[in-house]
């Protein structure tokens, strides 16, 4: 395709879009709204995954030790911990340190321990995990391995809470995929039917081009470019709207997030924004290719 053909295609694309201002407005609005909903789900998912990652950093496996643990058993236990691929680091917490932490953390409950002879709190190991092993199933596996080691009283890692949280994220992810696919298809459908209407209005032009000896590319390109332009514009608009909404709500979300134990919410990264616009363009191209199929049959394009 030479420069003259490209300028012809660009002029045709912009001209077609501007000639159908009313319909273009309606279609742009419908596609933009669908993309805003799609983006909102994406944003929710991004922040939930970030929250999970953040919680993962705080996830510790606490290995409570028996009071009669011998130095040899303790040394074996440390060797076992070093051998585990999931373990990033571990720290020994003596009975005295545990007592001091308890009284510091819960000063009102100091009397609870006063009536008991000696220090009832066990020594423990606080085990931190590597990033890729902070999921429920990895914690479960490590917990089982450590429980079988001699001298260990109990192993804890907030199992139920973590499982529930992961279930919520999985549900949102599935819902995101289902709703995302439905909205993606509806965007495709809206774009395809809009381009089809545009083609019906341009029937005479296509006929003139056909008899003038326009190639398949010359006939299809303005249509595909119109779809790409529509998809790209709607994606930019949707991201801008979503961004404005996010910034408007951000101060409120920033205030309430710590109370829920969540990190402050973030907007999409530049890469994701770029990917979103590219996806909009791709949806437009795919939608208009569907619309082009009757053209191939009728005009041999």
């Amino acid at each position: 395709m030479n420069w003259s053909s490209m300028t012809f295609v660009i002029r045709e694309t912009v001209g077609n879009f501007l000639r159908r201002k009313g319909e273009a407005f309606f279609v742009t609005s419908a596609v933009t709204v669908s993309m805003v909903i799609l983006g909102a789900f994406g944003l929710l998912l991004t922040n939930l995954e970030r929250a999970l990652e953040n919680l993962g950093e705080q996830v510790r496996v606490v290995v409570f030790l028996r009071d009669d643990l011998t130095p040899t058993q303790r040394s074996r236990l440390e060797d076992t911990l070093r051998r585990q691929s999931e373990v990033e680091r571990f720290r020994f917490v003596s009975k005295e340190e545990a007592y001091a932490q308890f009284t510091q953390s819960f000063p009102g409950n100091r009397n609870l321990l006063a009536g008991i002879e000696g220090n009832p709190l066990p020594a423990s190991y606080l085990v931190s995990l590597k990033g890729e092993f902070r999921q429920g199933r990895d914690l479960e596996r490590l917990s089982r391995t450590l429980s079988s080691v001699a001298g260990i009283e109990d192993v804890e890692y907030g199992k139920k809470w973590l499982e529930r949280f992961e279930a919520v994220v999985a549900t949102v992810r599935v819902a995101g995929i289902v709703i995302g696919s439905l909205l993606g298809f509806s965007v495709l459908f809206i774009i395809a039917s809009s381009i089809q209407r545009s083609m019906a209005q341009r029937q005479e032009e296509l006929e003139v081009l056909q008899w003038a000896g326009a190639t398949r590319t010359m006939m299809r390109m303005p249509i595909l470019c119109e779809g790409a332009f529509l998809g790209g514009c709607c994606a930019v608009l949707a991201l801008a709207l979503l961004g404005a909404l996010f910034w408007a709500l951000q101060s409120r979300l920033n205030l309430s997030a710590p109370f829920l134990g969540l990190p402050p919410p973030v907007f999409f990264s530049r890469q994701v924004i770029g990917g979103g616009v590219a996806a909009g363009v791709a949806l437009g191209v795919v939608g208009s290719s569907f619309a082009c199929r009757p053209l191939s049959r009728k005009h041999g394009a």
Partner: protein
Amino acid sequence: MLRQKLNSPEIIQMFGVSKSYGPNCTALEEISLGITRGDFVFLTGPSGAGKTTLLRLLIAAEPPTRGQIIVNGRNLSRLRPAELSHYRRQLGIIFQQSKFLSHRTVFDNVAITLQAQGIPNKVVKKRTWETLQWAGLEEKKEAYPARLSEGERQKVAVARALVDSPLILIADEPTGNLDEKFAAEIYKLFEEINRRGTTILFATHARQLAERSGRRAIVLRQGQIVESR
């Protein structure tokens, strides 16, 4: 045999061409003809004789049911889809009701033929302007099709068909809707085009036009050639 057909001085050749639309509707039956390069040939016959069908087969708008069509040495039934557009660039096509782009001026309606072929803008402007001058449309170049008379519209159609100097001009009833004055003007344009060497196939139901011109006429009736002189 095929080599002989391809090297023939005849620019259009049809061998046993038939076209049917279902078992009970035969539009053309066993048509064989040859048109020499540079000829001006009338295709006449009453309405429904098969003139338009024959022209549609020549512009590769649809394939024949049987037979072979060879235009400028190319067998149309062997044209690949990608070659179709290049084949059509050798043709100028004019219909009785030529379609125009209402949002484009006369100049742009003529220029689109060249733009569609990816010809540089400078050349497009020069050739379009020359063609409009030749057709006597220079004063109408900024007008929109809706503001033109039927005769002027048909002149624009002729200009559009000729702007890229086609080898063959195929015209389906180009003067059918025109009064005598405009019909004569259009016909004069066709004669001038023919003098430049363009082969013309001019379909009309007005047999007297062909007779008055003294040019070759092929007469169709019920899908068959009944006279060719």
